[in-house]
């Protein structure tokens, strides 16, 4: 073992050596620095490995041959080893990244850099508080010096603000240290811990001074204007060092000080962190400069880490895991992002669209952003999960809300940025070149995130979480992304079939229904993908990621697995949605609603785990602590995915703008994940014997109103896919309504709707999507008469709209009939009436859909369009067969469904007598009705066909219109706003109140952000005033 003192010695030695040897050239000195840093990294790693895996005990290093307090001692424990490893590793990678910049500035800069890393190491290891002061001064000076790596006035003023601010802080620190010595006679931290400093006379003030300066070093909001500037102004590679390495060291300093400060500080530390976390992320919303935004994000993350430090006693043995989980994700991701920002060199967020040219960079950027937000499989996901669970368990729900709120703010600006990168308008196509030494560190940190995620997942309770089979499959598809669509699509389909085959015996009936929808539906939607030529880069990995998440939800045995799958699914679907044209904003709002919903679910899971000894998903069946809130949160979380009214504004755009074969995935399939969640929640409430009648009552009204508003809004759409999207909202409203009834029939109706909606909405989205591919427009009034060109598409749409509208004899009627019976038996007459009114409204948009597209006059520019692609026809007609089977033999599906529902609602099911279903009030024989109607239809059709056998087929314009014969299709145009009268009468119901509400909310938040950030006047002196005022305020808060 190399003793840790060599970390310091190496740096100092190499530093001096460079002073002597700089005549050998800067490349030589640069190599020397790299060698020194790699040796330092090696030492830390060696200690880390020995302390963690070989159960070595922590080691003290005494300098100068004396015992403390007369000499300085260093400690190398497990946490120290992790922290120094992090610092040295990022120091090494940063030196690689900064190689050219440092070389340009000369060997002095190289030495200063080395000294900075060394100083950070000492900050972590030293146990002497005055030494802490000295090295924090060295750090400040070194940072202030290295800020000047970036040329220009901005970096100078930022550096100056930084140095004066840190001087003020260190003055406070020094006063604290001196008095600490005066009253105790020692400077050693271990002694302070032993004698409990605050019991001395004046001890609390001393602790206050030391503590506040340690906190101020971490740039707490709002006394942090000086800290943000350096992120923006210094060279990107150096911002990465500040964000990753300095932060790690400063947090460690705070941790050491907290060790002797006493438990009464914990609450205030947590509070300071929370204010920083929320405040900083709030202000991040308004930033359009990348670096500055990343700076806000860094400070926000540090705030979260400070909060965790404040909660370390409460979190107990999980605290280190949570702390390092979040710290490491932040550390790698933020370093990576800052480095990327140096490579891309686009200061404005919108200018990041140039990153698209190099998809691989986009992948790296996505990795970092998802790691920061806390998506699986990154360490932060597990850390955040544990954090929320533990906080809720200890009754700190308010804090959880704060954390989730701050995370949401952070997600807003990060994903907005990511959206610009993926989909923003490429303004200028400036070339940028990727230097090898700059991209290597970025790759290393990105891969480290995945590797760490993998290892963290092995940490005690997480071991069982990850079903690696789907993820490995995703990775495989990602690896072969360079191959043509034909191969990838085939592999994807075979993989999904195989996975379905292996997984289905393990699922109960409830889950099997959803698994069929998710996987079989997914396979059918994928068939349409054969249409695509070329490579379709990026599509297959994300689509499969979504399916992996969806199946993960179903396979979940524990709440953690469920949440894991849920987040994977969200990530995958986000990428699927954002692939569409013009879908940037929609994908963002989708992501935000999904995240907010996921946070609600997470909190609810936390509440559910209170008083439980297991993570099993069944704990939601027996929530002991504030169950009503937990169930409400769960339902709200799932309703964001089913797009219930109020939470629906993401859906229309997201579905309408998605690619033709993606729309069915995100509409017919993805929404069912929310349905599954609601089913789970309602079962958890105790199904028949639930005591939450108010909650389900509200849910019922919400479902009915969603059905009404969704359908009504669909009526007034001119965009075919948007119409279908609103229609989905309405249909999901029925489903929610049905489940909310909490009766056997209600559930049966809801499941019937779920299955039906999957089938006919898949058909409709696939068909309309295929038509759109042919006619190149979404607007229905630009189409018309396509029946003659696309009879297969027409028949598909005809059948599915008959099914959707619920007209007998097709399968939609089953749902209507069940719902009617359920409503009457349940006694929800008014809600039921609303639901039926919306069912009738469906006719309006369905008529509009089919007639505007397929009937009427063919447009001149569509005279040469062909039938929709065979790759769409195949899945469409497979689904139609399914629809027909369901219509002709409903008992095939309804009977097993009934059996399954009987587990939860044993009473009030359907009685089956052959094909005749009866309830206590009604009866229905699906098969016979099908036969009767079929025979009658056939007779009448042949009768008419016989009578008008001589009818003469006429040309297109053989009509008379207001006394004129039209000769172009345009003059016959009435498919625009065809329900004008209806709009006059009822349009007020679908004025965009809800969109307005969310827009207003967004604006208010942004305005607050814009207003608050004005405290950062840019004036260094003002920042000093902030610091002083901050100290005063904390003083009064603490000493009350």
């Amino acid at each position, binding site marked *: 073992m190399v003793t840790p003192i060599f970390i310091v010695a190496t740096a100092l030695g190499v530093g001096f050596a460079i002073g002597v040897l700089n005549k050998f050239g800067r490349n030589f000195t640069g190599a020397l620095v790299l060698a020194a840093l790699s040796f330092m990294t090696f030492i830390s790693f060696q200690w880390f490995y020995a302390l963690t895996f070989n159960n070595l005990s922590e080691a003290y290093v005494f300098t100068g041959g004396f015992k403390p*307090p*007369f000499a300085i001692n260093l400690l190398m424990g497990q946490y120290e080893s992790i922290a120094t490893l992090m610092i040295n590793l990022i120091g090494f990678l940063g030196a690689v990244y900064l190689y050219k910049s440092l070389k340009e500035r000369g060997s002095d800069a190289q030495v200063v850099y080395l000294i900075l890393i060394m100083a950070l190491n000492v900050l972590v290891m030293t146990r002497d508080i*005055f030494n802490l002061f*000295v090295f924090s*001064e060295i750090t*400040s*000076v070194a940072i*202030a*010096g290295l800020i*000047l790596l970036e040329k220009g*006035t*901005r970096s*100078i*003023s*930022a*550096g*100056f*603000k930084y*140095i*004066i601010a840190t*001087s*003020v802080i260190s*003055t406070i620190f*020094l*006063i604290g*240290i*001196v*008095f600490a*010595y*005066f009253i105790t006679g020692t*400077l050693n931290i271990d002694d302070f811990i032993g004698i409990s400093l605050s019991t001395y006379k004046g001890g609390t003030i001393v602790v206050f001074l030391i503590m506040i300066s340690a906190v101020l070093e971490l740039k707490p909001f709002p006394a942090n*204007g000086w800290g943000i*500037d350096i992120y*923006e*102004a210094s060279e990107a590679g150096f911002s990465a060092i500040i964000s990753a390495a300095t932060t790690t060291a400063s947090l460690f300093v705070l941790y050491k000080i907290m060790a002797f400060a006493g438990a009464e500080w914990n609450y205030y530390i947590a509070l300071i962190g929370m204010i920083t976390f929320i405040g900083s992320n709030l202000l991040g919303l*308004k*930033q359009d400069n990348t670096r*500055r935004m990343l700076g806000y994000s860094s400070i926000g993350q540090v705030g979260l880490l400070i909060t965790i430090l404040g909660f370390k006693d409460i979190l107990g043995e999980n605290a280190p895991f949570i702390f390092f989980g979040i710290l490491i994700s932040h550390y790698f991701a933020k370093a990576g992002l800052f480095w990327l920002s140096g490579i891309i060199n686009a200061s404005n967020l919108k200018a990041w669209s140039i990153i698209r040219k190099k998809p691989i960079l986009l992948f790296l950027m996505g990795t970092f952003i998802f790691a920061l937000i806390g998506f699986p499989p990154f360490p932060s996901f597990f850390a955040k999960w544990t954090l929320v669970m533990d906080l809720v368990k200890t009754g700190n729900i308010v804090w959880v809300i704060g954390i989730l709120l701050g995370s949401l703010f952070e997600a807003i600006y990060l994903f907005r940025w990511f959206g610009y990168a993926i989909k923003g308008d490429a303004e200028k196509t400036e070339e940028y070149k990727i230097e090898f030494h700059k991209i290597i560190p970025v790759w290393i940190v990105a891969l480290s995130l995945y590797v760490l995620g993998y290892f963290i997942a092995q940490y005690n309770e997480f071991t069982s979480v990850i079903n690696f089979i789907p993820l490995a499959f995703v990775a495989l598809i990602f690896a072969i992304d360079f191959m043509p669509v034909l191969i990838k699509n085939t592999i994807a389909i075979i993989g999904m079939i195989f996975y379905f085959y292996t997984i289905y015996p393990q699922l109960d009936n409830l889950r099997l229904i959803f698994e069929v929808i998710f996987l079989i539906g997914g396979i059918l939607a994928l068939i349409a993908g054969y249409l695509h030529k070329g490579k379709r880069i990026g599509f297959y990995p994300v689509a499969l990621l979504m399916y992996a998440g969806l199946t993960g939800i179903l396979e979940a045995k524990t709440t953690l697995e469920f949440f894991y799958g849920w987040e994977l699914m969200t990530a995958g679907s986000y990428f699927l949605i954002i692939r569409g044209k013009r879908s940037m904003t929609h994908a963002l709002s989708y992501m935000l609603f999904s995240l907010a919903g996921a946070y609600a679910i997470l909190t609810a899971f936390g509440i559910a785990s209170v008083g439980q000894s297991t993570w099993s998903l069944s704990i939601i069946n027996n929530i002991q602590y504030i169950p009503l809130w937990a169930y409400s949160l769960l339902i709200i979380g799932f309703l964001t995915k089913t797009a219930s009214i109020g939470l629906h504004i993401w859906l229309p755009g997201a579905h309408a703008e998605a690619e033709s074969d993606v729309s069915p995935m995100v509409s017919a399939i993805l929404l069912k994940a929310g349905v599954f969640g609601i089913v789970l929640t309602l079962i958890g409430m105790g199904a028949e014997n639930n005591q939450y009648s108010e909650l389900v009552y509200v849910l019922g009204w919400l479902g009915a109103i969603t059905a009404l508003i969704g359908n009504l809004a669909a009526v007034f759409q001119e965009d075919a896919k948007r119409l279908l999207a609103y229609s989905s909202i309405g249909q999901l409203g029925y489903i929610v309504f049905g489940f909310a009834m909490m009766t056997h029939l209600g559930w049966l109706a809801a499941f019937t709707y779920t299955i039906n909606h999957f089938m006919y909405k898949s058909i409709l989205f696939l068909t309309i999507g295929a038509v759109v591919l042919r006619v190149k427009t979404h607007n229905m009034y630009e189409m018309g008469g396509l029946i003659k060109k696309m009879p297969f598409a027409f028949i598909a749409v005809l059948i599915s709209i008959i099914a959707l509208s619920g007209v007998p004899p097709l399968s939609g009627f089953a749902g209507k009939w069940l719902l009617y019976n359920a409503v009457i038996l349940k006694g929800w007459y008014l809600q039921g009436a609303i639901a039926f009114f919306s069912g009738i409204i469906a006719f309006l948009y369905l008529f509009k859909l089919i007639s505007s597209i397929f009937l009427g006059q063919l447009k001149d520019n569509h005279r040469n369009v062909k039938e929709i692609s065979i790759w769409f026809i195949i899945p469409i007609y497979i689904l139609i067969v399914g629809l027909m089977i369901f219509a002709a033999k409903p008992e095939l599906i309804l009977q097993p469904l009934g059996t399954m529902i009987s587990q939860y609602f044993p009473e009030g099911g359907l009685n089956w007598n052959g094909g005749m279903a009866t309830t206590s009030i009604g009866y229905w024989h699906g098969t016979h009705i099908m036969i009767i109607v079929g025979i009658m239809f056939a007779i009448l059709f042949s009768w008419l066909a016989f009578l008008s056998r001589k009818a003469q087929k006429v040309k297109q314009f053989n009509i008379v219109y207001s006394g004129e014969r039209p000769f172009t299709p345009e003059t016959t145009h009435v498919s625009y706003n065809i329900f004008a009268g209806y709009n006059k009468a009822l349009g007020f119901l679908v004025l965009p109140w809800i969109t307005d509400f969310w827009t207003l909310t967004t604006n208010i938040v942004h305005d607050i952000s814009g207003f608050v*950030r*004005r405290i*950062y*006047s*840019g*004036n*260094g*002196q003002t920042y*000093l*005033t902030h610091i*002083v005022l901050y100290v005063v305020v904390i003083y009064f808060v603490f000493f009350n």
Partner: protein
Amino acid sequence: MINTEYFTLGHISLLLGFILIIVGFWGILTQKNIVKIILAFSIADAGINILIVSLGYVIGKTAPIIDGSVVQKAGIDVSDSIVDPVPQALVLTSIVIGFGVTALMLAYAMKLFTAKKTLHINKFNDLKW
């Protein structure tokens, strides 16, 4: 009447140290000229140094240097007759650090002046919000 017990060299210096720190801080927060702000930092530094030394000072004891003025007897701990050496060591470090920081600040001041031909701190607010 002032309690004479506190009317000692150490206490007066202590008070002086505090006053200088406060004056220095006041200067830092009110002066607009960057050089003056740096000067105010120097004043505060001097104040802190005085503070530290006066805290370690005990009346009637000599400097912590082992020479003729300290009666050396075998087996007797010399620490009884000298003032606490640790604060003085701290001050030495602090002086050097203070000088380094001041020098760096002045270097910055020069660069700032070269960039904008002014030393008024309000002019250097191009990074904000």
